[in-house]
C-alpha cells in the first residue's frame, strides 16, 4: 500500500525511457521519419511486444494534470 506510489513512479520512469527510445527508432510507425529503415528493421523484433502500448501512450490526449499523478 505504502510502496504503490514508488512502484508506479519507477515503472513510469522506465516506460518514459523505453517509449522515448521507440519513438527515436520506430518513429516511422507514427509517420515521423527518423532512422534509415535498415536499423529500424533490425530493432523491430525486440520492439514488437510494446508497439501497441507505445502507440496508445504516444497518441493519447494528454493534459497538464497528468503530471500530478
Amino acid at each position: 500500500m505504502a510502496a504503490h506510489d514508488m512502484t508506479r513512479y519507477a515503472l513510469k520512469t522506465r516506460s518514459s525511457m523505453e517509449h522515448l527510445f521507440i519513438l527515436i527508432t520506430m518513429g516511422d510507425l507514427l509517420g515521423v521519419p527518423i532512422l534509415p529503415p535498415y536499423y529500424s528493421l533490425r530493432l523491430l523484433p525486440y520492439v514488437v511486444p510494446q508497439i501497441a502500448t507505445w502507440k496508445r501512450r504516444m497518441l493519447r490526449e494528454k493534459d497538464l494534470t497528468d503530471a500530478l499523478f
Partner: protein
Amino acid sequence: MNSVLALGLAVVAALVGYYIYARYVDEKIVKVDPKKATPAKMYMDGVDFMPTGRHVLFGYQFKSIAALGPVTGPIAAMQWGWLPGLLWIVFGTLLIGWVQDYVSAIVGLRNDGQSFGALAYRLISPRGRLTLLSFIYFYLILIVAAFSDMTAAMMAKLPSVPLAIIGLMAVGILAGWMIYKKKVDIMVTTVIMVVLALFSIWLGSVLAIPASKLVWVLFTLLFSYLGAVLPIWSYTQPINYISFYLVALGMLGAVLGILVGHPSFTTPSFTTYTIGVGPMWPILFVTIACGAISGWHSLVSSSGTARQLESEADAKYVAGGSMYLEMILATIALIIAGAAFANFDAYKTALKAGPATVFSVGMAKFFGFIGIPEAFGTAFAGAMFCILAITVMQLVVRFARIATAELVGDAVPAFRNQHVGAVVTLAIVFGLVYTNTWSYIWTLFGGSNQLMASLALLMATIWLASQKKSHAFTLWPALFMFITTIFALGLTARNLILNVGKLQAGTLKPATGQSIGLAMGGNIVAAAIGIFLMVAALILIYDGLKMYFKIRGETRAPKAPVAQATPGDD
C-alpha cells in the same frame, strides 16, 4: 461534550453515509457494472493505466488526499466553537464531500480515464480547458503558499521540529539510495529508516534549532525546490514513502490518546457568528476545506485513481471510503483544538502562532495520555504536520514547473528550463507568504479549493445529465459550493483591498520587519489572485450551465414522430 462521543458520532455518520447513501447512489443512480471493462484494463500500459487491488488503491487515494487541509481547517474553525465545525465536517462529507470524490472517479472511469482538462474541453467548452488549467495553476500556488507559511511559522515557534525535518530529508535520500542503487530489501530499508526517522525526531526534541520564520520559509521552499528538480526516485518518493509510516503512527497515537484520555471539549460549542476573517457563512465553509469537501480530491480521483481501478464496483470503496476516513481525521483535528487546551483563551493564544502550533502542542498532550513524553510528542506531532505539508508541496512545485514550461515555454523559451520554472513558482509563493497573513492565504486557498470542487461537481452533473441519469445529488452541492465560495473569495479580496487602504492611512501596521510598501504589494497581489480565480470560475460556470441547459433541452425535447409504415409501401 466528551471527545470520545464526538469521535463516535463521526464514525457512526461515516458508516451510515457509506452503507446507505453511498450504496444508494452507487447502485441505483450511477448503476456501476462490475463486469464492465475499466480504462485500467482496456488501456493497460503498466504505468498510468494499471489495474490495482482495491485495498492498495484505498491507501493510495487516502495518502494522496490527506494533506494539511483536514488538519488545519478544523483547528482554525474552532474560533466559531466546536459545533459549527463538527456539523460542517459531518454533513459536508455526507452530502457533498464523498459525492465529489466518487463521481470524479466515475466520470473518469466512464470517459476512458480522461483528465479534467480534456473533460472540460468536451463537457463544458473549448475555452474551458485553458480556463480550468490556469485556474488550477494559481490554485496549486496557493496550496504551496498556505502550507509553507504554516510549517515555517510552526518551526519558528517550536525549535524542536526543524532537526526532525532535516533528519527526515537525510533519511529519505538514504532510503532512495539503498532501495534503487544498493538494491537492499525494501522491508529491511523501511524498518531501518523508520527507526532512524524516529531517532531524528527524538534528537530534535533535545537539540533545538532556533531561527526566525523567514529562515524556515526559505527552508521549506528549498525543500520543495529539490523535490521539483531532483530525480523523483532519489528524493521525493523515498521521503514520501517513509513519511507514510510516521503519519500512520501519529494517527494511531492520536486515536489511542483520545480513547484513553477521553477529555471533554474545553472550548465553547458556539462563540460568535463573525470572527476576524469574516462571518460564518461563507468563511467557515472554505476554512474547513479538505475535511468536508476538497477540489484536490477530484484531481486525484480522476487523473490518478480512475485509471487504476480494476472494477467499477471499487469506486465507492476507494474514492468514497477514503473521504469518509478523512472526515474522521478532520474530527480528530477538531478534537485536538477543542479538548487539548485548558480553555478557549489558551487555544486562541496558541492559534496566534498558527494552526500548526495548536496541532503540535495539542497532539503532544494526547500522546501524553498513552505515556509518550511531551517533548518527544511535540516534536513528533510537529514533524507529522510538516510531513503532511511537504509531501504535497514537493509534488505541486514539480507540477508547477512543468505547467510553467507548457503554458509560457513557447513564448519565453527560458521557462522551458526546469530550474527557471521551479524558481519562478517559488518566487510567487515567497512573495505571497512574506507579505501576507496566514488567515487570508488560507481563506484564498480554501476558496479556490472549494471552487475547484464545485467545478468538478458541475462537470459530473453535465455528464450525468448527458447520460440521462438523475443528477440532483451533484447539481445542488455544486451550486451551494459555487455560491458560497464565490462570496468567500469576494469577501477575502475585498478585505485585502481594504487592508491596502488601511496600510496607506496608517490604521493598520505591517508585520514585524515588513515595510508598508511590501505589505501593500502583497495584499494587492493576493487580492488580484482571488479576483482572477473568481473570474475564471464564473466563466467556467457560465459555460457549464449553458451546456447543462442545452443537454437538458435536448433530453426533454419530444422525439420526432417516427413515420409509420403503411401496408403497400415499399
